[in-house]
């Protein structure tokens, strides 16, 4: 087994255990950052190895890394690291305000590492059963974090999150059982029939009826975690009521990871079926999510809730792109996954500090951020402009790719998408603008806010919009070919 890979999984595990013991220390936040940073280093080394030597398998093919998941591994480790950096001052301020106890901090730090581990296992495992187990583990590690503040609203949000995602993921288990059932006919019983690489080789022989029923269950199951409408109810609540660093990783990473599992199954289903069954379903759910989320955006009063709906909208757009398929749309979808993840977590970082300053999440009471802290204000403004798809940010590039493919392949959907994006633009921009400009009522924070992560993310998104390095483009192209 490659040493980088071993480190990639053992570091967050060690971090989870260490922080379960020492997570309430005053230096625990630094320890959390250190573990996340080391995980990112391991991920970067793994990327270098895969780029140089091609796909690799580990632990008797139980794990494998190809061009599709390696880029998500790098992205996940990177955003986990920057969010740890952001959470250091953020959680310290929350602790000073008395919203979190010492035990709460221990839970928070430990679960943060274990959550990272669960996501990395989902991304790297080759075994579809383990993928399910790790996905459920990702829910379990975050459910107590959503309820960290123990307020009425946060307990309700966490309960909803647990029950809805639990029921959803149970459907995905049924789907996985059905896929195993189809595979067992060809590959025989045993762990081998659950390995994605083995299934991929025989995908054209898998029983089409079973695969289509399985895909419906999987779409409902993992789609709940992606936040596709009408399975999205848990998402805005969990994002609004949990601590902001958790909102950032839920939005920026967990949704991507859930969508990744769906894509893996889509590849298998497409191989088994003659007709574009999976594609149509993905396009339908994606388009519905974009439209419904755009309309809900205009009605939001809570800033974190609003950006949670914006995540639903963007995940819908990405799902639609993968539904259309083909090299350009898949390329656009992968690029959009990257830039959305980076931009949305940057926005949540800025929003986190803004709400701490204003002492509320209600947008009507947050005013004039530029006066009190220009960097938080500009971070929020630039992040908003970026997520709304303004050039020259990377989101513009990916949305442009997706929309131009839609014009060519699904012309009927283009006006719907454009109108929805327009509504989203008007609602979000109209609400963020007075928050940033105007007179201020905000107070000073006891600890300096962490703004390096915000601007690092935005700078990367800007770079991706202006110039994409050829090796990166090549990497996306390979991954897009894999998706088909």
């Amino acid at each position, binding site marked *: 087994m490659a040493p980088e890979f071993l480190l990639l999984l053992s570091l967050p595990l060690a971090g989870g255990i260490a922080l379960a013991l020492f997570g309430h220390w005053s230096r625990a936040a630094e320890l959390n950052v250190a573990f996340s940073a080391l995980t990112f280093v391991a991920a970067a080394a793994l990327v270098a190895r895969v780029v140089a030597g091609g796909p690799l398998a580990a632990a008797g093919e139980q794990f494998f890394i190809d061009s599709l998941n390696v880029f998500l591994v790098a992205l996940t480790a990177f955003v986990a690291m920057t969010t740890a950096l952001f959470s250091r001052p953020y959680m310290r301020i929350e602790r000073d305000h008395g919203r979190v106890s010492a035990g709460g901090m221990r839970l928070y730090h430990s679960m943060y590492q274990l959550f990272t581990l669960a996501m990395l296992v989902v991304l790297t495992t080759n*075994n579809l*059963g*383990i993928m*399910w*187990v790790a996905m*459920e*583990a990702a829910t*379990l590690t975050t*459910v*107590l974090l959503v*309820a960290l503040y*123990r*307020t*009425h*609203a946060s*307990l*309700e*949000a*966490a*309960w*909803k999150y*647990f*029950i809805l995602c*639990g*029921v959803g993921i*149970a459907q995905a*288990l*049924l789907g*996985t*059982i*059905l896929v*195993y*059932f189809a595979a*067992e*006919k060809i590959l025989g*019983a*045993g*762990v081998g029939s*659950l390995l994605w690489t083995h299934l991929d080789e025989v995908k054209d022989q898998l*029983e089409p*009826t*079973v695969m289509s*029923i399985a895909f419906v269950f999987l779409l409902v199951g993992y789609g709940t975690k992606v936040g596709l409408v009408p399975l999205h109810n848990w998402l805005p*609540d969990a994002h609004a*009521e949990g601590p902001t660093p958790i909102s950032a990783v839920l939005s920026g990473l967990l949704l991507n990871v859930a969508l990744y599992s769906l894509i893996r199954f889509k590849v298998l289903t497409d191989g088994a079926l003659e007709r574009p069954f999976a594609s149509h379903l993905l396009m339908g759910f994606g388009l519905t999510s974009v439209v419904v989320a755009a309309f*809900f955006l205009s*009605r939001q*009063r809570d800033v974190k809730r609003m950006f949670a709906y914006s995540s639903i909208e963007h995940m819908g757009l990405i799902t639609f792109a993968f539904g259309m398929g083909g090299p350009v749309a898949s390329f656009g979808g992968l690029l959009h996954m990257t830039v959305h993840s980076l931009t949305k977590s940057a926005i949540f970082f800025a929003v986190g500090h803004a709400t701490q300053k204003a002492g509320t999440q209600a947008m009507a009471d947050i005013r004039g951020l530029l006066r009190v802290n220009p960097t938080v204000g500009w971070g929020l403004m630039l992040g908003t402009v970026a997520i709304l798809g303004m050039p020259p940010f990377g989101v513009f590039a990916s949305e442009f790719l997706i929309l131009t493919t839609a014009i060519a392949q699904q012309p009927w959907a283009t006006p719907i998408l454009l109108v929805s994006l327009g509504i989203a633009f008007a609602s979000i921009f109209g609400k963020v603008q007075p928050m940033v400009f105007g007179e201020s009522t905000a107070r000073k924070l006891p600890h300096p806010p962490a703004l390096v992560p915000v601007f690092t993310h935005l700078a990367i998104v800007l770079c991706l919009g202006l110039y994409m390095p050829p090796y990166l483009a090549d990497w996306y192209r390979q991954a897009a070919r894999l998706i088909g």
Partner: protein
Amino acid sequence: MLQHYGPQLINLFAAVLLLLSFAMLTQRRILSLINLYAAQGLVLCLSTALVAWLTGQTHLYGSAALTLALKVVGLPWILHILIRRLNVKWDVETLINIPSMMLVGIVLVILAFNLALPISQLAGTVTRSTLGIALACVLLSFLMMITRSKAVPQVIGFLSMENGLFFAATGAVYGMPMVVEFGVALDVLVGALILGIFMFQIRERFDSVDTRHLEKLKEH
């Protein structure tokens, strides 16, 4: 002898499982609900062991033992402690319209059989006829979760849904590979523990574990 009656016995177990699901759907006392859940686990364990014996799939003995440890002993025990500590042991839930709930349940069973038909035709297992019942159990647990307002019965509904899925796996493919089953069992156990902690937090905040208090977050 047993070889001959084996498949019929499995069908009998499946029928008992379905009956237990209906009983859970309409059971109002929380304590009895937990006992029904344990009984469901026991039937599941027996049928898994029987399938293992009939087919010679030795790994199914492992999952039968796992079921016994987790679903007959472990989880009911945790639930018993939980309701004693939460002081809801003798709680009775008001369920409205039990007859119409039964009717919806019957419709769900028919739906499940229809859905399972194309799959069980393809299955080569001796247990293929039970797949429809397994799906029906999943859907009935679903219905139970929707109709209950107290937290503990909702959780039992969730756990019994997992029982149905486990039965589906045994029926269609003689169980998932062992590593996956261990993983699923671990998730269920951790999930139940987290829910336990969680219910104390809810009670501390609301002075009851009725989820009707948890209906404030919605779109205005």
